[in-house]
């Protein structure tokens, strides 16, 4: 079956523009995570959904960042009034359930590389 897909793969925005990044998780996966990966760094947690409920948004760096998953499947990460420091790869991951066993494995999409000029 298909893995996690993300679109667009690359996005160039002028400072101040709004952007929307899409994530299509693996069908049937309950959990969905967004991470931000700066160049040469490990990913950093942004937010977590269980089905359509956003249970944790503690990693969102500012109120310009907003995420939604209205039907418990596709998720969108929106960044308003983009700034240069928002330039990064945005990774989406999904997993079947939230447990400590193998079922917790997070499957990652290829990411969206955002460049803010």
């Amino acid at each position, binding site marked *: 079956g298909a893995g*996690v897909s993300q679109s667009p793969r690359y996005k160039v925005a002028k400072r101040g523009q709004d952007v929307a990044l899409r994530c299509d998780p693996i069908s049937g996966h309950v*959990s969905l*995570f967004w*991470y931000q990966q700066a160049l*040469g*760094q*490990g*990913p*950093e*947690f942004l937010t*977590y959904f*269980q089905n359509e409920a956003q*249970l*944790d948004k503690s*990693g969102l760096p500012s109120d310009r960042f907003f995420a939604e998953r209205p039907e418990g499947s596709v998720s969108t990460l929106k960044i308003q009034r983009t700034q240069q420091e928002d330039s990064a790869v945005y*990774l989406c*991951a999904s*997993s079947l359930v*939230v*447990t*400590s066993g*193998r079922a*917790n*494995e*997070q*499957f*990652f*999409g*290829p*990411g969206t590389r955002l460049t803010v000029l």
Partner: protein
Amino acid sequence: QQQVKQSPQSLIVQKGGISIINCAYENTAFDYFPWYQQFPGKGPALLIAIRPDVSEKKEGRFTISFNKSAKQFSLHIMDSQPGDSATYFCAASWMDSNYQLIWGAGTKLIIKP
């Protein structure tokens, strides 16, 4: 306290050699320790994972060694191959955080033919 410290930043190993990457953590609530492999332009992919009730886990050429008292864990890649050249990340997570991953900074591994 939430950090995971990873070393070395980069590593060059001859083909057939053993690659060793180390990680340390502080938060004793962590109960899941995965290693991810990432190729350029791709998302991370799970390689192997361990829970703290086990001191070692082996899958093929990949082994995690876990030292709970020292709060350290390491990845060993036996018989390293050029196809193993990638960036490796250790991570940690725990149930109360819905298993969000806390990541190390990554190790760029190059296997020389």
